[in-house]
């Protein structure tokens, strides 16, 4: 019932689409390689062990590395438990549809709010109102609110993919709901939770505006979470903004390379861990 003409036309159209898609994807990949290559080729010359592990001005970025780690740990320590518990609540105990709907809407809204507004909020509430000043704690609290939607959504997605059969199997053995969640559901959702964590880390590490407003740019090695500090991203931002010495741009490139490499490593770790867990689960 179909003409040869139509079939040929279809083939041409299909080919055209394929070419368009190929162009689009190539564009994306080319820009990715360009950005990464641009940053790393300019920065690699400056990177060395002493660059990462020295605190001395003009030589090393150790304080920034430490502050970044502090911030990551602080915000994850706050956001992960809250996020996971919320996701579990939404997904496993959703017997109050109103509450669930409200919480979901709130999360959707939170997810869309520009990060600078989180910064304003953190500045007003944590730094000024609660008197934490610009500190790692204030920043960690702010960022943890910011990554909460990411963690909740991703965790929820992975909880949703845990087959109902696992829950039924466990409950049918006379376990309580909490035992079931803790022993069967959460472990199965682990890869997803891991992805959430990594996405959260990426967001925390990459964020500039809210960190600038709540953590500050103190260049010292922080000694506690009540100290102010400067993250790698802020360092990079600051170097491009206030470049005081000619070599600052070199350092900026090197810092950017460290950031890009960090993101790369985090991505590789996620991928590996996820495939590892998947393999463990499926075969």
């Amino acid at each position, binding site marked *: 019932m179909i003409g040869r003409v139509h079939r040929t036309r279809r083939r041409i159209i299909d080919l055209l689409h394929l070419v368009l*898609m190929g162009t689009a994807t190539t*564009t*994306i*990949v080319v820009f990715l390689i360009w*950005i990464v290559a641009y940053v790393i080729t300019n920065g690699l010359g400056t990177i060395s062990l002493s660059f990462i592990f020295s605190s001395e001005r003009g030589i090393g970025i150790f304080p920034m590395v430490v502050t970044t780690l502090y911030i990551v740990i602080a915000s994850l320590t706050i956001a992960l438990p809250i996020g996971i518990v919320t996701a579990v609540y939404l997904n496993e105990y959703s017997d109050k549809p109103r509450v669930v709907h409200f919480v979901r809407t709130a999360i959707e809204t939170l*997810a*869309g709010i*520009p990060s600078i*507004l989180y910064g304003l909020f953190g500045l007003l509430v944590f730094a000024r109102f609660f008197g934490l000043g610009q500190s790692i704690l204030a920043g960690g609290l702010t960022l943890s609110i910011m990554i909460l939607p990411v963690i909740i959504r991703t965790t929820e997605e992975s909880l949703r993919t845990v087959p109902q059969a696992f829950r039924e199997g466990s409950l049918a053995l006379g376990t309580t709901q909490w035992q079931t969640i803790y022993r069967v559901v959460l472990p199965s959702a682990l890869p997803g939770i891991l992805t959430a964590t990594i996405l959260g880390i990426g967001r925390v590490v990459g964020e500039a505006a809210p960190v600038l407003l709540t953590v500050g740019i103190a260049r010292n090695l922080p000694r506690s979470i009540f100290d102010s500090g400067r993250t790698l991203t802020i360092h990079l931002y600051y170097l491009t903004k206030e470049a005081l010495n000619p070599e600052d741009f070199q350092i900026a490139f090197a810092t950017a390379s460290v950031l890009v490499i960090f993101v790369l490593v985090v991505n590789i770790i996620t991928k590996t861990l996820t495939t590892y867990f998947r393999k463990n689960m499926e075969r």
Partner: protein
Amino acid sequence: MVIFVFAQGLAPFIFPTAPSVEVVLENIPSARINDLLYENYRRAISLDPEAEYLKIEFPRELQDHLSNPEHLSYTLSFPGTLPGLKSRIHINIPEPPYSFPMFMTGREWRPVYRKLYGIFPMIVATLLSTLGALLLGTPVALLSCVLIAEFLPSRLSLLVTSAVELLAGIPSVVYGFFGLMIVVPGIQRLFGSASGSSIAAAIFILSLMILPTIVTIGVTAIKSVPLAYREASLALGATKMQTAWFVVFTSAKSGIVTGVVLGTARALGETMAVILVAGNSPQLPTALTSSVRTLTATIALEMGYSAGRHNEMLFSVGIILFVLIFLLNGFIMRLRGKMLSEVSS
């Protein structure tokens, strides 16, 4: 959180800046104001709101230098050697509450001395750059979504997806940096304009930044479309491409919309990268090469330097951003609701 920002940001439209007229002496050892002598006084001197006139008597040596007092409306200054060490008298007349319509429609943002807070150009710039980024980025993202999820062999697909995820994890400052060093000069050369810092550069960088968001979420959505739909379509003699667009893509619509929405939110909220490439002039754009300033950029640029009403006004800008996001969310919920009801009823 909403409450906090709102509380701070609504104040300038309700309250005047100060309860009464104040006089501030800068580097002036002594003066007599309304017959009271102030010596080495460094705090604001609040006047009685009932007072009908203001009489200031300066020390002799300053009076000799008094010149041309009206060139700055509220400040009388005396020639001195170095900035910061000048002798000046400031008379702070409380400003009335700022008019909200003027805030929304005003074309001029001169926050420091002329106290003009018009954000209309910034609203326009924010909307235009977001829209532009969507128009430029979405088709590219969607096309490659389909290619990655449906046509690439699984190894290559995994590789490209990982690469795109890497793109998603790169800090926005790095994008801004790249934009400043590569895109901005490129645009200047391309258009032959005075400068390359422009709305075009912002759109370009933003579209680059929303690509990974849309692609990652879109690919996940497309991959989660049941195999059964593909089989059904292929079994009906549709080509792979027809199947991809008419069945798979349509079924993944809801997820893809989520991706586009999150991308839009990212474009709307992006700050650091935009600051580095957009030029930040608070003017209405007239061409692609016009330098523009977005709402988020204004907050980030001025928060650290602002004081008093200027500071509160930045929170007001935050409120406008909130409202934009709420509108966006509402619109999406509508859209998604429509799509869901389309599917279920």
